[in-house]
């Protein structure tokens, strides 16, 4: 009798393993995640405005309709990325996501403290490879390290009331995201 109980008990343990492995494995198999959905409309390393969400059509679920949104789908394989954007009159933010849609960094207009949000995005290796002196002189330059080579930059400008939406969209048009020439290798300090 006891012997027979061991089978379902073993099954229960195995079930636990199945549960944990499917949860960990799921993000790798998702084909409808945010990055994949944006892949269709957003070319690499350029800023593309997203259509405003409507009941009939929304590119991503749970988009905030009070915001004008644009994305830059980036690839750092060819070198670091320079990002700049004028802040709008209302709330403006820039969020960074990895290829698997993890939010690893976000900054808003007030934290940036200036009329322009300006930063360099690079992988850890690229940051380490940067000539040291450049790192120091650029103390006021914001450097963001991306944990993945590809990912998403999401730009948002708030339209506090519907009439302000064109202004918010206008602010996003000032945004640039471009690969910069890789730093000259082996330059002596």
């Amino acid at each position: 009798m006891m012997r027979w109980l061991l089978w379902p008990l073993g099954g229960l343990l195995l079930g636990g393993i199945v549960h944990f492995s499917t949860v960990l494995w799921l993000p790798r198999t998702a084909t409808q995640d945010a990055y994949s959905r944006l892949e269709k409309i957003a070319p690499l390393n350029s800023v593309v405005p997203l259509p405003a969400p409507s009941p009939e059509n929304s590119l991503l679920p749970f988009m905030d309709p009070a915001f004008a949104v644009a994305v830059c789908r980036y690839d750092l394989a060819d070198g670091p990325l320079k990002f700049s954007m004028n802040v709008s009159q209302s709330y403006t933010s820039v969020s960074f996501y990895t290829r698997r849609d993890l939010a690893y960094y976000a900054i808003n207009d007030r934290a940036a403290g200036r009329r322009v949000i300006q930063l360099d995005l690079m992988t850890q290796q690229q940051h380490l490879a940067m000539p040291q002196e450049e790192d120091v002189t650029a103390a006021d330059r914001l450097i963001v390290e991306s944990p993945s080579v590809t990912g998403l930059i999401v730009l948002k400008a708030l339209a506090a009331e519907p009439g302000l939406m064109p202004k918010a969209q206008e602010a996003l048009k000032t945004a640039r995201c471009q690969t910069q020439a890789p730093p000259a290798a082996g330059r002596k300090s």
Partner: protein
Amino acid sequence: MRLILGLVVAFAVAAVVGLGATWWTLAEGTAFGALRVGAWTAWPRTGTIGIDPYARAGIARTGQLPVGIGDGVAFLARTDEKRRLFDGRCDVDIRGITPAARFWTLTLYDPEGRLVPNSVNRHGFTSEEILRNTDGSFEIRVGPRARAGNWLPTGGIEHYVLMLRLYDTPVGVTTRSGRETPMPSVTTEHCP
């Protein structure tokens, strides 16, 4: 024969328990790092690189982009304070104040995260456009029929969810529910 039967039982139990648990946790959402205030729940950690594997799987499945913690925090409500699922045919009152934030927005979605069609094309409010009482508190009426004041139409759909997003806010991963997080109350007033 006994061995084969035993293995079949073991694998069947494993499949049902394992896949069932995965499906259930993704459908219900997990309690890890949840900040609950009344009817509202936020998962501030999902906006960081320290997101837990369950929230990660959930995001990959639905295709949403979580609000980054340097940007803001999103509070979700599926039910009123008495744990009754929101019904688009009922009148629901949202009353009170929000935690400190430079801006906030309140948006109504269907359970899949789509906006809901309605006659006035209104899907939510921002902190700037809301009508307030003299003490700064506000009252929003969510329901199928037009009302005076801040009316948020449900379009009469069966179930909906509400999302209150705080932007540029001190509320974050270390916040505990309490005086710092005075979320508005959510009560069902009237149901046909």
